[in-house]
């Protein structure tokens, strides 16, 4: 080989170190993953051992609150292994299985639209906006099941105050990560990516609405929407946008992903309402996750049991039309 000969490999062809390392890691993890999945599938490894093998990081310095402390919590394993997160696949076990290698750091969120100063903010700085709190909330999925989850997060209202929206801001739009390299499910055009959600300004300002960064006192697992996700407990779970990358203040109502996917079946408001069925299935009752084979269904409550705090937001509205 001649010294000084110019390489005929262009810089763009060179695989960055991070990528090939990721690949190796991926191959390794995929191997282990397969073994573990196979072993688990045959009942060789119990659920709790599987969970313990995963990396879990404690959050320090959040305050406990009175929210929902009388509720029986859904076990950690169920909260983290039964998820809807189509960017990682459409089955309930896909998110936990396919998000193992997802790295939610570093992370930043763009604050856009009707605000004084549009800017991009690091996750670390978002965490400084307000002290973190624990909120134990019921979560009701539009499919008819529910959980009770101890979230750790900050009130959305605090972030809004910090963002200083203009008088034109009537809605908040949440745009989530659409990265088909890191999210295998996002390669499939099953929904119109990026997954987008939205709230009316007064809904976003309601004290119940939080941006969660953890659960069970630990950093939010990837399959639950790491590193930062929306939690709106009186609405169906799909309103809770995961892995948020943009928060956009708008004058007009945003087009949200599930409304685009099925306008007859999913509405912008998506408030939990036992008297308005999904066109295809009942919303009158729900299956509480974590029960046994003999646990009966639970009656679904109006606004998921948060009517006292939020019913006034919808006074005078026809909830049959604005479902």
């Amino acid at each position: 080989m001649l010294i000084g000969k110019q390489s005929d490999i262009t810089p763009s062809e060179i695989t960055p170190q991070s990528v090939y390392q990721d690949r190796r890691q991926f191959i390794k993890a995929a191997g282990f993953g397969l073994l573990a999945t196979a072993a688990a599938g045959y009942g060789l490894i119990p659920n709790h051992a599987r969970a313990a093998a995963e990396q879990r990081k404690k959050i320090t310095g959040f305050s406990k609150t009175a929210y929902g402390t009388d509720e029986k919590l859904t076990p950690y394993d169920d909260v983290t292994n039964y998820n809807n997160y189509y960017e990682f696949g459409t089955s309930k076990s896909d998110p936990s299985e396919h998000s193992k290698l997802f790295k939610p750091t570093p992370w930043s969120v763009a604050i856009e639209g009707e605000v004084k100063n549009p800017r991009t903010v690091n996750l670390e700085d978002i965490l400084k906006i307000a002290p973190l709190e624990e909120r134990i909330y019921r979560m009701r999925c539009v499919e008819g099941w529910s959980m009770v989850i101890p979230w750790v997060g900050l009130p959305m209202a605090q972030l809004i105050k910090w963002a200083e929206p203009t008088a034109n801001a009537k809605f908040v739009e949440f745009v989530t990560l659409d990265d088909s390299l890191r999210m295998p499910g996002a390669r499939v055009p099953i929904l119109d990516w990026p997954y987008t959600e939205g709230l009316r300004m007064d809904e976003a300002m309601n004290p119940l609405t939080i941006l969660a960064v953890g659960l069970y006192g630990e950093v939010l697992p990837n399959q639950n929407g790491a590193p930062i996700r929306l939690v709106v407990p009186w609405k169906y779970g799909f309103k809770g946008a995961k892995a948020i990358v943009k928060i956009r203040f708008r004058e007009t109502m945003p087009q949200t992903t599930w409304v685009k996917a099925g306008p007859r079946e999913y509405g912008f408001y998506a408030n939990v309402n036992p008297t308005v069925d999904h066109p295809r299935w009942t919303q009158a009752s729900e299956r509480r996750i974590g029960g046994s084979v003999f646990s009966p269904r639970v009656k679904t409550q109006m606004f998921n049991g948060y009517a006292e705090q939020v019913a006034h937001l919808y006074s005078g509205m026809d909830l049959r039309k604005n479902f």
Partner: protein
Amino acid sequence: MLPPNRQQLGLIKAGLFLLALIPLARLLWLGMHDDLGANPIEFIERSTGTWALVILLVTLSFTPLRLLTGTAWPVQLRRMAGLFMFFYACLHITTYVWLDHWFDWQEIAKDIIKHPYVLVGFAAFMLSIPLALTSSNAMIKRLRQRWKPLHRLVYLVAIFAVLHFWWLVKKDITEPMLYALVLSVLLAIRVAFTLRKRKGQLV
């Protein structure tokens, strides 16, 4: 290949019988080891429903196999397969009525009337009852030429069963589409052969 003799056929039937019990054994095993996942009732409902559908498609594949390859003896396994389809459908609907709804008949009635996917599933089950009841040799003899038209109901059962699955899926219809595809092929082969036979008779 020679068709199996009486003794061999007996063995094949016994094997098929044991094979068809595996999904139930698996459910019991997982249930005893508390490994039915986060939503065990949904798991049992989906599993028994899926196996009823799979076995139904197996039941419907013996005739196309004969038409395409001339191998006729597997048709002798059809009744057992059909009854296993009914067995898993019974487990499916028992799970729904008992574990899922705890015999809340009012809720169940509402669910059937209001929701098309439940309605077609219910219809598929109801239509399969007379088929199961008339599957014995004695009933075949008693019904004579009426037996065959009655058992053509199985096509309707299959179409309803696939629809039932299709309509319950929230968004990702890949799986029900696969079942629909298999069913379409199985039915198309029958139609093609019937048309050919008719054409032959006309000429």
